[in-house]
């Protein structure tokens, strides 16, 4: 099953709002289940994607961009799953959030992502942010 999936790309576009983060988690759960991941690894991917989308949603709320969309793109490889999350939630300006109570959970979210996936990059893009996460399928 996994062999024939190699190179397959699944893309989902959804509103950058709290009620849709669960939809993104469901989608990535389906995609990650097609990989040679253990049950725990699938859960890792689900949680990491949930955290990344949550961060986008929180920045969108802060920047008045809740009408924007998130694009979640996942690419299935033989050995790894690449997940790209593109938001249009505005700039993630450190100045605008210091001292806010949400900062603590955002820091936890960033920590979780780092611990749950093998590679993560967060790159500003025009009007938002691109987060890329890579999870490798371990040899069994």
């Amino acid at each position, binding site marked *: 099953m996994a062999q024939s999936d190699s190179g397959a790309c699944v893309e989902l576009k959804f509103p950058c709002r709290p009620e849709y983060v669960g939809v993104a988690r469901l989608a990535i759960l389906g995609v990650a289940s097609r990989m040679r991941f253990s049950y725990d690894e699938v859960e890792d991917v*689900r949680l990491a994607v949930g955290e990344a989308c*949550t961060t986008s949603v929180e920045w969108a709320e802060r920047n008045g961009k809740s009408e924007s969309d998130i694009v979640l793109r996942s690419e299935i490889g033989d050995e790894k799953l690449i997940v790209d999350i593109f938001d249009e939630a505005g700039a993630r300006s450190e100045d605008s959030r210091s001292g806010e109570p949400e900062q603590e959970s955002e820091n936890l*979210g960033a920590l979780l992502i780092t611990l749950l996936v093998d590679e993560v990059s967060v790159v500003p893009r025009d009007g938002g942010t691109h987060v890329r996460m890579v999870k490798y399928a371990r040899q069994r």
Partner: protein
Amino acid sequence: MNFKMETRAVESMPPIIELEGEVDVYTAPQLKQQMIGLLEGGATELVVDLTKVEYLDSTALGVLIGGLKRLRERDGNMVLVCPSPRIRRVFEITGLDKIFDIFNTQPEAMEMMGKETG
């Protein structure tokens, strides 16, 4: 929406918030409001039961940490009931299992509270 919250309060016992389903960026604000209400009502001890929780994210962790901080400021405490290894793992990998007292059952949690209040 896959989220339910029920609060049980028995006289002379700490209130118990029982959560069910997904506690995330969408649903955690309800938990926050409930906790604020109990704190404003004078609660100094609280049990949060995560037995039926299927998913818990950093937003929920943030709410729980906020509640614990406020309770400890008034010499109170909050304990968690969390028998699910999957949910407990979120606490473990973030190191929060060292901050929270986590029990497998409500009776164990209540016993701990009983000892604290002496």
